[in-house]
């Protein structure tokens, strides 16, 4: 690690600026807000997976004592959605419901109990429509449909269109289809010495933040609407509210309250946010709506279930001559980020190891289930799992150490991938070397102790999307700084701290540049009235983008302070610097002066001290349709070694230890980075071993009911299931990041799932080509092995469907070095 010891704060560990308030229970989350005369809202949700709404009668609810207002979709009918191409959500469903849990009406009452009781007063008449619950059904042309839900029998009388969930889909229930080819995969496969064709399946799972979504709205006497919400993206919520409420954005204020965990689950504009605003406008009273845990499961936007076909060609030296991914995503009932998710299941395979020719095809289908969207890793964990398990299989074919296979073929620094992504620095080699050394990987892998296994996985992730959600050329992140005469420095930024520590990043960078204490920096964030726009906490963009914007804002102030001090002290400004709350001369020739004195001299000379800074990512990436997903200022890299103990009789296993190395570029706050890495490891391990967002289906069941909408029954890791994590940070000092930084929030999750799969194979010889990797599946594999059959567990069938002809994209002109 090339530590720059001249830093006062950067790369060190300091306490999160909001840490103590959280530890002491003083943080005010959205649900902690209580405003005078506040009402409580509840939403009535559909009990049917797919049905036409024939009528809704709210009159009885309105008569209930304590109920102040009730509304239906007709009160706020303008559709919205996070992506401009998927404006397919309604505040409350107007004509039809598309999943169990779709809201159809809302009530505001003097307390939650009354609001909940009033839901029972609302009468909704539905006409049941055929429901689509699987990828296979979603792929079927509408003419092949369907069965009537109540009878489970084919219904030739059903008009085909009734089974279509959204009319705007590419075709039938295929929401989006993509087909791209970079180079020529046919030639690439012809050049290969080894070819493998594999099927993989990755089950859907959800974010499970500790805090349920909550929102409070107030309609002021001045006519303005204020929304407090636990959101990761106040700016996008602001835009959506302006559209749906048909109000100028200047009349709406969105404040993101401290978020008790997001992980991508709070990055869409949501129905409950629209509902509280409208009910506040209808009643003239503040309105709060906090989702129940069950409702959070319906709000979802979690990991897409993805069925994958992968074909790869490899030379005997391990280089990949051609790679072909064909992915089917189960999107659920709405678009959400789904179009981006679809592209992300193909975009980042190329940034770890050079791929000479690459074909990527994908389809996202609509189904009558909770909508999928972005969860930590967004579209990347599924293909990364497939690719890293596939490399393990190739390593066996070639009789090569899996680490050696990867180390031989790494994307070089300053190079371009076959799909036109720019890699500035790549620390993957160092990550692999460090985790394999620390874990004794080479030795342990070849030890033949039945039941003990070790596995390697790698990954890469973007430090922020190169493009915003809606087309514009404005900055992605803005920062404003003002300095008070008393020495307090306030930084204003639209960024949202969702627990990852972005407020601490802002404070740390300002403190570093001005040579002051962290406690002297006042951080004001995520308030559309007060703070410049930052696009939000998603795509691992925050540290890099707000960091660069902060540097742009703070450095001119630093110059002003130094220049004014130099004038008073009568020495050249270049000889002065800011350290530990003082202006000091670099050679010690003059007595230090306090920061407060220096600030007052600067205000005397320049007037009020304030500045702004912003950041726009460099324009990179290809020119083809779909090239917008994947480019990023830089990419983080991670490698993980997992050690497992698996009972060869039962398949029950424990994960004994994880070694996780992450190329962070440069840590801003080392402790927070380690926290992010460990959090990613936890979440990755939880989905690797048990998590599954699944629904009831089949003729004996009312279709489309979520199987486990509670924290007890939806299984995720407990503290007792979490092994030790040895975190190793690799610093590559990337030229694009502030001080060289890269992301830490999502990348470290990616290598966990394949590392576990590879370790299980190493332990007991069972290949689970599916996530989650459960004892039941391993047991089945063990039984198969005992019968002399293959120990592979995974999908066996793949839908036969014709993709549109792939858009041919020429490789970048110089695809090795920039």
């Amino acid at each position, binding site marked *: 690690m090339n530590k720059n010891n001249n830093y006062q704060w950067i790369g060190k560990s300091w306490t999160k600026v909001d840490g103590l308030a959280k530890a002491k229970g003083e943080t005010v989350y959205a649900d902690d807000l209580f405003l005078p005369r506040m009402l409580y809202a509840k939403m009535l949700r559909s009990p049917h997976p797919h049905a036409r709404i024939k009528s809704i009668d709210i009159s009885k609810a309105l008569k209930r004592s304590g109920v102040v207002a009730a509304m239906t979709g007709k009160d706020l009918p303008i559709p919205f959605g996070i992506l401009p191409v998927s404006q397919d959500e309604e505040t409350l469903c107007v004509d039809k419901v598309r999943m169990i849990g779709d809201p159809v009406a809302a009530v505001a009452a003097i307390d939650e109990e009354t609001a909940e009781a009033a839901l029972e007063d609302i009468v909704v008449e539905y006409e049941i429509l055929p429901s689509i619950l699987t990828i296979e059904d979603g792929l079927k042309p509408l003419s092949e449909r369907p069965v009537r839900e109540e009878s489970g029998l084919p219904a030739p009388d059903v008009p085909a269109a009734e089974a279509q969930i959204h009319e705007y889909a590419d075709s039938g229930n295929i929401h989006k289809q993509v087909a791209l080819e970079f180079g020529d995969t046919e030639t690439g496969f012809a050049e290969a010495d080894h070819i493998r064709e594999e099927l993989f399946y990755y089950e859907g799972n959800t974010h499970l933040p500790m805090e349920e979504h909550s929102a409070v709205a107030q309609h002021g006497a001045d006519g303005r609407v204020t929304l407090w919400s636990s959101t990761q993206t106040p700016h996008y919520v602001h835009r959506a509210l302006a559209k749906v409420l048909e109000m100028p954005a200047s009349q709406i204020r969105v404040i993101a309250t401290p978020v008790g965990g997001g992980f991508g689950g709070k990055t869409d504009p949501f129905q409950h946010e629209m509902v509280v605003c409208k009910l506040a406008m209808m009643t003239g009273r503040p309105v709060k709506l906090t989702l129940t*845990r*069950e409702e959070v499961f319906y709000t979802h936007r979690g990991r897409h279930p993805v069925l994958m076909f992968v074909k790869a060609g490899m030379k005997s030296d391990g280089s990949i001559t051609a790679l072909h991914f064909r992915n089917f995503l189960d999107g659920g009932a709405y678009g959400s980020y789904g179009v981006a998710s679809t592209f992300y299941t193909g975009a980042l395979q190329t940034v770890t190891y050079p791929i000479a020719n690459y074909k990527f095809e994908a389809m996202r289908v609509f189904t009558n289930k909770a909508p999928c969207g972005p969860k930590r890793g967004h579209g990347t964990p599924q293909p990364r799992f497939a690719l890293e398990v596939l490399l393990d299989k190739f390593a066996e074919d070639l009789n090569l150490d899996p680490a050696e296979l990867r180390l031989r073929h790494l994307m070089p620094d300053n190079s371009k991938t076959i799909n036109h992504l720019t890699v500035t620095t790549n620390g993957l080699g160092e990550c692999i070397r460090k985790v394999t050394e620390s874990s004794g990987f080479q030795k342990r892998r070849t030890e033949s102790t039945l039941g003990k296994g070790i596995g390697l996985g790698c990954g890469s992730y973007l430090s922020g999307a190169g493009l915003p959600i809606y087309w514009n050329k404005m900055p992605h992140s803005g920062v404003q700084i003002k300095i008070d005469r008393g020495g307090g420095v306030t930084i204003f930024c639209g960024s949202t701290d969702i627990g990852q520590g972005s407020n601490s990043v802002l404070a740390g960078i300002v403190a570093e540049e001005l040579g002051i204490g962290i406690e002297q920096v006042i951080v004001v964030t995520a308030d559309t009235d007060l703070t410049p726009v930052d696009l939000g906490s998603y795509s691992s963009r925050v540290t890099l983008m707000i960091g660069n914007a902060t540097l742009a804002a703070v450095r001119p102030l630093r110059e002003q302070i130094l220049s004014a001090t130099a004038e008073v002290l009568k020495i050249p400004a270049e000889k002065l610097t800011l350290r530990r709350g003082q202006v000091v001369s670099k050679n010690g020739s003059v007595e230090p002066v306090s920061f407060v004195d220096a600030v007052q001299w600067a205000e005397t000379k320049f007037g009020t001290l304030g500045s702004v800074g912003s950041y726009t990512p460099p324009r990179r990436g290809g020119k083809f349709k779909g090239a917008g997903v994947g480019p990023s200022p830089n990419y983080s890299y991670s490698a993980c070694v997992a050690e497992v103990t698996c009972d060869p009789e039962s398949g029950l296993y424990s994960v004994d230890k994880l070694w996780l190395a992450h190329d962070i570029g440069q840590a801003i706050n080392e402790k927070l980075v380690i926290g992010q890495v460990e959090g990613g490891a936890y979440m990755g391990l939880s989905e690797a071993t048990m998590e599954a967002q699944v629904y009831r289906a089949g003729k004996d069941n009312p279709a489309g009911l979520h199987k486990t*909408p*509670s924290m*007890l*029954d939806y299984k995720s890791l407990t503290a007792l299931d979490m092994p030790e994590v040895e975190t190793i940070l690799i610093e590559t000092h990337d030229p694009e990041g502030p001080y060289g930084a890269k992301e830490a929030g999502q990348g470290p999750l990616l290598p966990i799932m394949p590392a576990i799969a590879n370790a299980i194979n190493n332990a007991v010889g069972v290949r689970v080509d599916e996530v989650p990797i*459960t004892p039941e599946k391993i047991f089945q594999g063990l039984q198969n092995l005992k019968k002399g059959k293959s120990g592979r567990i995974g999908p066996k069938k793949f839908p036969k469907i014709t993709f549109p002809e792939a858009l041919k994209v020429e490789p970048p002109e110089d695809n090795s070095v920039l």
Partner: protein
Amino acid sequence: MLRLPPFEYHAPKSIAEAVALKAEYGELAMYVAGGTDLFPNMKRQQFTPQNLIGLRKIPELFQLVFDQDGTGLTLGAGVSLNEVAEHPDILKNYPALAKAASLVSAPQLRNMGTIGGNLCLDTRCTYYNQSYQWRKALGFCLKKSGDTCWVARSSPKCLAVSSSDCAPVMVALEAEFCLASPAGEAVKTRIVPASEFYKNDGANFLNKTADELLVSIRLPTYYSGKSGIGWKMNYRKLSRRNAIDFPLLGVATAFRQKDNGDCAEARIVLGAVGSSPLRADEAEKILQDGSLTLERIEDAVQAAAKLAKPLDNTDMTLSYRKKMASRFITEAFNEVLKV
């Protein structure tokens, strides 16, 4: 959030007062001890009592007396699961019970949850332990407000699962439960053997009237003997996680060996694979008064595992849970034979 519906809370100071309150309010009232199971169920409207009779102020329910000279252990129903898990007398003399209690949920819930509550735990089912709105979308079920058992639609009875960790151990150790009920001004008590306390019917799973209160449990003495000869007992639990999970299979075992190593007595009880703990009488007979040959053990394992008839109404697949039954019983024997 999901609200706890309003109710009136009563805090009687004696068993007599408690059962009298229950008699007074009848079906509108329920007893509550730790509340770790009842309160979540009330939020989801499986239970809608208007009165709760709290048991935390009744000193008699917290007794824990171990008499080495033969009378065994008397355990008040209000003793917390953590105390059962950690009490030195229980750890030493009834290690299977201590282990079962230690495996319930998580430390915070074991501090609140009581042994009596765990023994009277409502049966569980993935179609039943859901919110009111979810069950309404389903069309309700046989156990509550409906007439269909969604696990097996032809089943005339509810198939919800006995999910107590401690119950199979109590059956294996031949505990006796003391139940109190009102008799005019006085209190009437009734002693029921643990094996008769449970009924294999998910909707009607306890041999206990609504008025009756489980006040204490009595366990006979089990001598562990010298050099490993004597009683050995264990409890094994299958669950997906190491905490906050109900059992998907529980195997309680107790064996007494003779000086020559032969089996003198064997008890094998399966939990969480039926609506009650299932005692493997046939397997026990195979082992009784015989040498522990591998063949006999295998016969006993097969006989015991045959009882496990898990259904698709918990976590993990039913075929896996069935397979694990024989695996867990085998492991229990291996542990005994190791010493």
